[in-house]
């Protein structure tokens, strides 16, 4: 919810590339399908009419017990609505907000709401970024016709934040969204408010219950004719409960004398569903009973999967017949079925009694079948339920999904699933899974042990198992990068490249995150080694993707590319890349800011060069807050350098020296980390009036790193030796890649030296050139470092063009231009909501509060609320200022 005013002034996320499906799973489309009504479904006009009010109210809640007929009622209503309805059957695995919203957005798109594509998609299981929800609400708000969205089995949503987020979207989508919740429990939305506003349609148990007339018709649909008294008694006994009536009808149908049967049932005292289901089940042929009990371990199944579980080949017709008879089985389309949730539960109780101990075997069979045909997450879940961890780990590794521990929607789920893996599980795949979990927790010691186990086991296993070897190479590259061992990373990455040839292209294509992670780790390791060109090649490859599954490696790579730019003296380029990383992260709702720590450090370092010290401090604080312990030596060294640079700029050379003295543990040394640390140390000595020490500190670095040579020249100048300074500057190797941050300092040092030698004309010419370059990059720090002579030179010179912000005036805080994540500090300017923008736009047209309220169909108070929050976000107190400010920020 912040202004993301990038260079192009375009803060809208790009639409994801075509074919990017966050779910990556056509199988799950059954969850977006409006359930099919059975032939015996009874349309009840009174309920349909009541539901029609859902078209006029923001929220509709169909709230009833299991088997009350909620889903079929809404499905039938939706099917006859004559306009698109987005349907999502909530799954138990949708507990993580990121996953829930990814599915919901996909359901909206599946319903044809194409504009939703612009909203972006969460790429992080655990979170959804607020901006994404705001964009969604705004898109919906702008619709001509409201979109009806049905969330079936909403009771499965237990995470309180999802309810809050839904409430937010519902509120801000205004008339663009009609939400229908089908649930067994009352949702934790502020229902009283909707009730008070008259924007809630409620259908509850009492209304869902069948009247005697309706029950009579339903029974007739099942071929049963009963007298009115018998029907009334039956309705009384079942309390009009749809599932009870349906089971009654089924059980009676199968008995020789339905009338007597129902009478006996009425007189009984059994729990209804329990008793009737047992009756209906008992009357099925034995093989059918067996089939029903077995498939009750599955959420959904097709005939082939049912065959695998039942150990037979003919379940297709049996399932079709069960569905036709409306007995337990519901059709999801595309030959997939499910059991009615209520019946599945009761059948489960029967299964446990009748086949004690069979459950693991059923899960194992399901996992085996799904392994080659179903979604990986289902396979893993059944593998885990079967307790066969060796198998489960192998499925994951063979699917090349090991990278999903680190990036994408599944990372949290995978971590949780495998947290249950017992320590005695053997096999290289199990060790790889352990190492992956430990690496993602930065537990390097244990990861090394498990990687070594896996490596040895794979060596013993002989040829084959390419997927496991490739996974091992990936984890190896990561481990090498985290320990700062570039040689090992190169070796592992080479191995990975070779292994790719042994794997089917189709499998590799399904995992774009694998090469992205590999290149990121390799690039980061090369960066540590100071091989900037090679690092750039790898990092650019990793940054080229666009999908959600590669978002995290992309952010990491962009951050490292930005660092290279900064280190080679290109602050503006560095800033562009860093901002691109932040914008991309926001688009994919990356809550885990792991990839962004370095991005903020680079921005902080750039801010120091521009003498925007408060901003630099805020960015540094943020980077430290999200990553108290730097994950890799590159980040650790960058933090030391940025921190020391800031302290130096704040006039605390002593503290800067202390900071620069902290060690960064790494397997191999890094030339740039050493040189840039030496640079700060030298500058600090210079600031404390020890030019000789300053020169000495740079002895090794001079000639290797241009920035150090320039700094040494400045130290010589301070020591009163312009000749030595010029000598150094003359021998500065001509290098194409050297950026303005270095050039400006070199020009200034030369100007000062020449001036001291008594050539003010040349000095002035050089200083002018330096100023021009500094202005382009908005570099103020080098000018301030240059000292009083530059000021004197300027004062005597006609050339008093303003340097960026002038030499004295502070430029305006640049933090405002950073995306959200950069500024969770006091400096935040939040993005205006769609509604606030609407209000401001009308304000700009000189409309009064009352006119705005009328125009937007909201109350005057609502307009005032929007205005107040817009004022707060813009930091103003008056209407005129708000409009002015919003225009200035290009928000209007």
């Amino acid at each position, binding site marked *: 919810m912040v202004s993301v005013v990038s260079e192009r002034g375009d803060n809208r996320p790009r639409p994801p590339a075509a074919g990017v499906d966050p779910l990556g799973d056509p199988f799950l489309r059954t969850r977006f399908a409006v359930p099919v009504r059975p032939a015996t479904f009874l349309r009840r006009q009174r309920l349909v009419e009541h539901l029609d009010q859902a078209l006029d109210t923001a929220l509709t809640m169909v709230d009833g*017990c*299991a*088997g009350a007929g909620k889903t079929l009622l809404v499905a039938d209503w939706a099917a006859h609505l004559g306009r698109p309805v987005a349907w999502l059957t909530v799954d138990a695995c949708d507990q993580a907000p990121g996953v829930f919203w990814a599915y919901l957005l996909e359901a909206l798109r599946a319903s044809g709401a194409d504009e939703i594509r612009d909203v972006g998609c969460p790429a992080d299981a655990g979170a959804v970024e607020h901006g994404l929800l705001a964009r969604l609400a705004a898109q919906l708000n702008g619709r001509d016709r409201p979109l009806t969205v049905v969330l079936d089995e909403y009771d499965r949503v237990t995470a309180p934040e999802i309810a809050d987020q839904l409430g937010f979207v519902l509120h801000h989508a205004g008339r663009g969204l009609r939400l229908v919740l089908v649930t*067994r*429990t009352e949702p934790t939305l502020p229902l009283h408010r909707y009730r008070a506003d008259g924007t809630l349609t409620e259908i509850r148990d009492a209304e869902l219950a069948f009247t005697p007339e309706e029950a009579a018709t339903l029974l007739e649909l099942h071929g049963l004719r009963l007298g009115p008294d018998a029907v009334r008694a039956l309705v009384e006994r079942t309390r009009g409960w749809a*599932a009870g009536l349906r089971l009654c009808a089924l059980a009676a149908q199968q008995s020789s004398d339905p009338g007597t049967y129902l009478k006996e049932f009425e007189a*009984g*005292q*059994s*729990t*209804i*569903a*329990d*008793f009737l289901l*047992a009756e209906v089940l008992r009357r099925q042929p034995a093989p059918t009973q067996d089939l029903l009990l077995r498939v009750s371990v599955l959420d959904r199944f097709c005939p082939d999967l049912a065959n695998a579980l039942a150990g037979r080949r003919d379940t297709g017709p049996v399932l079709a017949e069960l569905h036709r008879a409306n007995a337990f089985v519901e059709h999801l389309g595309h030959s997939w079925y499910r059991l009615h*949730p*209520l019946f599945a*539960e*009761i059948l*489960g*109780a*029967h299964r*446990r*009694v009748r086949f004690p101990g069979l459950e693991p075997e059923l899960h194992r069979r399901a996992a085996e079948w799904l392994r080659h045909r179903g979604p990986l997450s289902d396979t893993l879940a059944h593998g885990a339920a079967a307790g066969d961890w060796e198998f489960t780990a192998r499925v994951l590794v063979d699917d090349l999904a090991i990278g999903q521990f680190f990036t994408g929607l599944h990372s949290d789920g995978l971590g949780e699933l495998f947290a249950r893996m017992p320590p005695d599980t053997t096999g290289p795949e199990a060790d790889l899974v352990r190492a992956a979990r430990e690496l993602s927790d930065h537990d390097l010691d244990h990861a090394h042990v498990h990687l070594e186990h896996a490596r040895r086991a794979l060596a013993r296993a002989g040829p084959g198992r390419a997927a496991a070897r490739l996974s091992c190479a990936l984890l190896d590259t990561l481990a090498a990068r985290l320990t700062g061992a570039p040689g090992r990373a190169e070796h592992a990455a080479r191995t990975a490249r070779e292994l790719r040839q042994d794997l089917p292209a189709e499998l590799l294509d399904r995992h774009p995150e694998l090469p992205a992670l590999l290149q990121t780790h390799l690039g980061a390791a090369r960066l540590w080694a100071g091989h900037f060109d090679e690092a750039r090649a790898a990092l650019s490859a990793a940054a080229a993707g666009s999908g959600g599954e590669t978002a995290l490696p992309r952010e990491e790579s962009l951050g490292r590319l930005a660092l290279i730019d900064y280190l080679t003296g290109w602050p503006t380029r560095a800033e562009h890349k860093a901002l691109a990383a932040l914008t991309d992260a926001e688009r994919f709702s990356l809550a885990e800011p792991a990839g962004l720590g370095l991005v903020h450090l680079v921005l902080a370092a750039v801010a120091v060069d521009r003498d925007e010290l408060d901003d630099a401090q805020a960015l540094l604080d943020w980077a430290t807050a999200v990553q108290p312990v730097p994950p890799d030596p590159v980040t650790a060294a960058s933090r030391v350098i940025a921190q020391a640079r800031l302290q130096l700029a704040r006039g605390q050379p002593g503290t800067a020296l202390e900071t620069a003295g902290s060690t960064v543990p790494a397997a191999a040394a890094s030339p740039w980390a050493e040189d840039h640390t030496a640079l700060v140390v030298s500058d600090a000595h210079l600031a404390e009036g020890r030019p000789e020490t300053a020169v000495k500190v740079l002895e090794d670095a001079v000639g290797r790193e241009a920035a150090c040579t320039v700094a040494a020249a400045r130290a010589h100048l301070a020591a009163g030796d312009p000749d030595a300074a010029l000598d150094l500057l003359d021998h500065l190797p001509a290098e194409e890649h050297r950026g303005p941050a270095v050039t400006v300092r070199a020009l200034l040092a030369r100007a000062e030296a020449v001036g001291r030698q008594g050539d003010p004309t040349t000095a002035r010419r050089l200083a002018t050139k330096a100023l021009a370059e500094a202005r382009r990059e908005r570099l103020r720090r080098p000018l301030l470092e240059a000292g009083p002579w530059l000021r004197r030179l300027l004062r005597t010179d006609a050339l008093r063009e303003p340097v960026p912000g002038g030499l004295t005036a502070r430029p305006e805080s640049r933090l405002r231009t950073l995306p959200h994540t950069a500024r969770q500090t006091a400096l935040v300017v939040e993005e205006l909501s769609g509604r606030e923008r609407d209000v401001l736009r009308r304000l700009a047209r000189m409309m009064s509060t009352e006119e705005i309220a009328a125009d937007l169909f909201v109350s005057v108070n609502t307009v005032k609320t929007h205005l107040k929050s817009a004022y707060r976000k813009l930091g103003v107190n008056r209407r005129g200022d708000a409009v002015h400010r919003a225009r200035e920020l290009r928000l209007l």
Partner: protein
Amino acid sequence: MRYEIRVDGHMSETLAKAFPELEHVMMSGQTVLFGPVVDEAHLYGLLARCRSLGLRVLEMRRVPE
């Protein structure tokens, strides 16, 4: 904590096994499930189990140890 949960109707022995941690007894058209409940989470879990099995909970109360 000990609780008793009264549900409508006589439960079958099979369904009662869905509550292995509780004992049960039938009385006057109701089934009383009773026994130790570990904590709140367990309590809500039991309620959810009743709901998903289509049982009508008539009463739920804490009983002295």
